């Protein structure tokens, strides 16, 4: 096989002194699916920015099709036949699929014409759709199509620009298992048509499933490039993290006791008045983890917000040790020993412009332990913070460092530390490991299981089905604001099975957890 791309000894030092890439080698062969893996901050995105012309390397060489590559910007990269499908969709919602695909390369009615030739554009797009089997309606507005199709639009976008080398940046992060299967199908079709794929991911299972070779980055350096068929998940993760990582969460079978939270016929509407929760009924008991599976945007966020007092319910009740949480304020609910790890640590989980120590006592500062008259007892706060940072392995310069300066994983540990330090009887954890690297995921999972074993009830919401499956004792599937199934998480339960419920294809017949 010929070598398509060769990046050698790539170094990138940013003006502020951060060395993001410290000697990366990446060799991609023509026609292969090359997985690129590494923890957050390992240098993947910087490397791809360099390859795509968004950043210039400090040193190092790039050869593409055997000749050295000098890029001034993304346009150059596109002209060279590279295309990038970004992790966050780069689409304008109110434009049509066709307009998004041709954006920046519109066809005109003639060489001198001012006007777009929309018919010709649509023809070209239909041809592409046919060739690659990426089904999507070119005339539909992007805001009206589901996530899986949006991704197809992104792929069509790079194909329209004639990309031969396609970079997929964590393409499965937002997809259901079925959509992921379809994506993999499309990727294989692309390879069949002579394209080459660089596949960036966190999920090692996907690496094993689809890639031909895998390059592992750690701390800005290439650690190894392996033939996928000669390696396994354990080896790759060891290379990524630099030590052994436990994959499956070690936990004993649950020993559920008294009911902690009993949600009955809960309904809620969003700010536009549309229903987002429909008759949700759930039970969570001491010593068990109830996982909520579902495609994002099906009511998980609102369910958590209603239970924590952030969003009003229109009817129904949520009995917490017999006391209704609905109608209580956030502070009242928190005072009842309900811990909440919000889904977005940047906006609602932590205050980025405060110090780590301040963030750690955000829920405890009224506690006499931390006050001195009307003031906060700084010394006690700092002592507490130091202990917490050690317990939860928060890596930062000091407890006075700004929370905003922490990496995603460390910031999440701060949030988790705060919520667990109150010894919650009910822990509501929303996306607890989103965007967190493998080492930290393992740690956070262990902490959550530890709380369960200590007798807390845990409500876990995650877009990662694998996370829900590995942590939960029972799994409730939410679809369109409705709990469509409550399943015992045992060996017989498969991702496919849950996937059907997530997509609304299947629904448990009998009324779930009737009040």
């Amino acid at each position, binding site marked *: 096989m010929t070598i398509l791309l060769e990046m050698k000894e790539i170094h990138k030092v940013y003006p502020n002194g951060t060395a993001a890439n410290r000697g990366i080698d990446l060799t991609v062969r023509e026609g292969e699916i090359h997985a690129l893996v590494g923890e957050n901050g390992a240098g993947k995105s910087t490397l791809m920015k360099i390859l795509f012309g968004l950043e210039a390397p400090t040193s190092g060489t790039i050869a593409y099709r055997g000749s050295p590559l000098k890029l001034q910007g993304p346009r150059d990269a596109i002209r060279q036949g590279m295309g*990038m499908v970004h992790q966050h969709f*780069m*689409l304008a919602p109110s*434009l049509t699929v066709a307009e998004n695909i041709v*954006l*920046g390369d519109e066809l005109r009615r003639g060489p001198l014409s001012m006007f777009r030739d929309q018919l010709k554009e649509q023809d070209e797009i239909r041809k592409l759709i046919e060739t690659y089997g990426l089904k999507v309606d070119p005339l539909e507005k992007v805001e009206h199509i589901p996530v899986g199709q949006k991704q197809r639009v992104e792929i069509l976008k790079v194909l329209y620009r004639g990309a031969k080398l396609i970079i997929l940046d964590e393409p499965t992060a937002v997809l259901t298992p079925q959509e992921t299967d379809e994506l993999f199908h499309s990727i294989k079709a692309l390879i069949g048509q002579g394209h080459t794929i660089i596949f960036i991911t966190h999920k090692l299972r996907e690496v094993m499933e689809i890639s031909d070779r895998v390059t592992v980055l750690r701390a800005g350096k290439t650690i190894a490039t392996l033939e996928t068929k000669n390696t396994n998940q354990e080896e790759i993760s060891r290379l990524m993290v630099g030590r052994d990582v436990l994959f499956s969460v070690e936990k004993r079978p649950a020993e559920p006791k008294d009911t902690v939270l009993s949600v009955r016929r809960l309904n809620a509407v969003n700010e*536009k*008045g*549309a229903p987002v929760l429909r008759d949700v009924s759930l039970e969570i008991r001491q010593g068990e983890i109830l996982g909520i599976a579902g495609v994002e945007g099906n009511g998980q966020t609102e369910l958590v917000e209603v239970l924590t007092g952030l969003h009003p319910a229109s009817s129904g009740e949520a009995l917490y040790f017999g006391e209704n949480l609905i109608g209580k304020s956030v502070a009242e609910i928190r005072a009842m020993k309900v811990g909440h790890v919000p889904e977005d640590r940047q906006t609602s989980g932590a205050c980025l412009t405060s110090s780590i120590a301040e963030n750690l006592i955000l829920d405890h500062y009224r506690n006499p332990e931390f006050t001195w008259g009307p003031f906060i007892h700084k010394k006690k706060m700092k002592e507490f913070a130091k202990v917490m940072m050690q317990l939860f392995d928060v890596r930062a310069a000091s407890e006075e460092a700004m929370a905003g300066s922490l990496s995603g994983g460390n910031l999440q540990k701060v949030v988790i530390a705060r919520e667990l330090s109150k010894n919650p009887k009910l822990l509501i954890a929303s996306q607890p490991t989103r965007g967190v690297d493998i080492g930290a995921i393992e740690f956070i999972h262990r902490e959550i299981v530890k709380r369960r074993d200590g007798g807390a009830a845990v409500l876990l919401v995650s877009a990662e089905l694998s996370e829900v499956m590995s942590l939960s004792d029972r799994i409730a599937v939410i679809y369109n604001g409705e709990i469509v199934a409550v399943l015992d998480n045992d060996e017989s339960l498969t991702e496919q099975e849950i996937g059907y419920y997530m997509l609304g294809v299947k629904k448990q017949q009998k009324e779930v957890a009737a009040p």
Partner: protein
Amino acid sequence: MLNAIWNQIVDLTIVVVLFRFMTPILLAALGGLISDIAGVINISLEGLMLLSAFTSIAVCSGTGSWALGIAAGAAVAVAVSYAIGFFSIRLKVDIIIAGFAVNIFGSGFTIFMMNKMYGQAGNYSPPDLHNIPNVNIPFLEHVPVIGKLLSGHSLMVWAAFILVAFCVALIYKTPYGVHLRAVGEAPDAAKSVGIPVRRVQYSALAWSGLFAGLAGAYLSTGMTSMFVKDMTAGTGFLALAVVLLGNRNPIGILIGSFIFGLASAVTTIVQTIPGSQYPTQFIQMIPYVVTILALVFFALRKKRRHALAV
């Protein structure tokens, strides 16, 4: 009194007055629209109109050419819009604050210059000003109804209507229009396919300056023949309301301008009727009351539509 209004409707005077009033609103709103869809909403339309109104009447009376007057007014408005772009896009000043600064500057600076150049404090009306001409259509002007409907309007009235069509074509039919919308809605997406986001935003601001400039020039050298301090009297803000009310598209804006123009026309007609028993202060409130009502209506409709959409 109703009788008097009815007479004006029947003899189509109201149409003439309506066109006069809606033209500056329409022009300014088109400018606001282009800046809004590119995500750089230009709230300084008011100030730009004042600057242009003063510049164009000064140049027009100095050179005797209305065309030069319009050109100078528009040029000043475009230049100031570029300055807003420089501050907001390049130096990252909040665009609302930059726009407000221009509104305050436009009011103060024109009064200052009027005083310095002409020694006038309240208004400046040059003798024998060569106004923007009216278009009298031969033959048609003598046909009873159609004549009054189509003939005798200022050139700028026609320009405004033509510019509506121009904006439709620009926004929906050209690649540039798609780029404008993409830049306003998803700048990262635009950037990722190599669209020069900043340049598009600068150009959108320039368009808004051009349109606001035309609107301002019409105020001083078309609709009237003088410059009065703060003569825009909120037209620029009204235009911003029209952008929202018109659902951010040129045709909607045409309709919105029509409604506001009508409100102003009624105000004027009622005021000029001799022996009106209503206090003028109340009559003059009509356009602003219409603005509030229209925005409330718009908000309700939007809410209902959202509820229906899900």
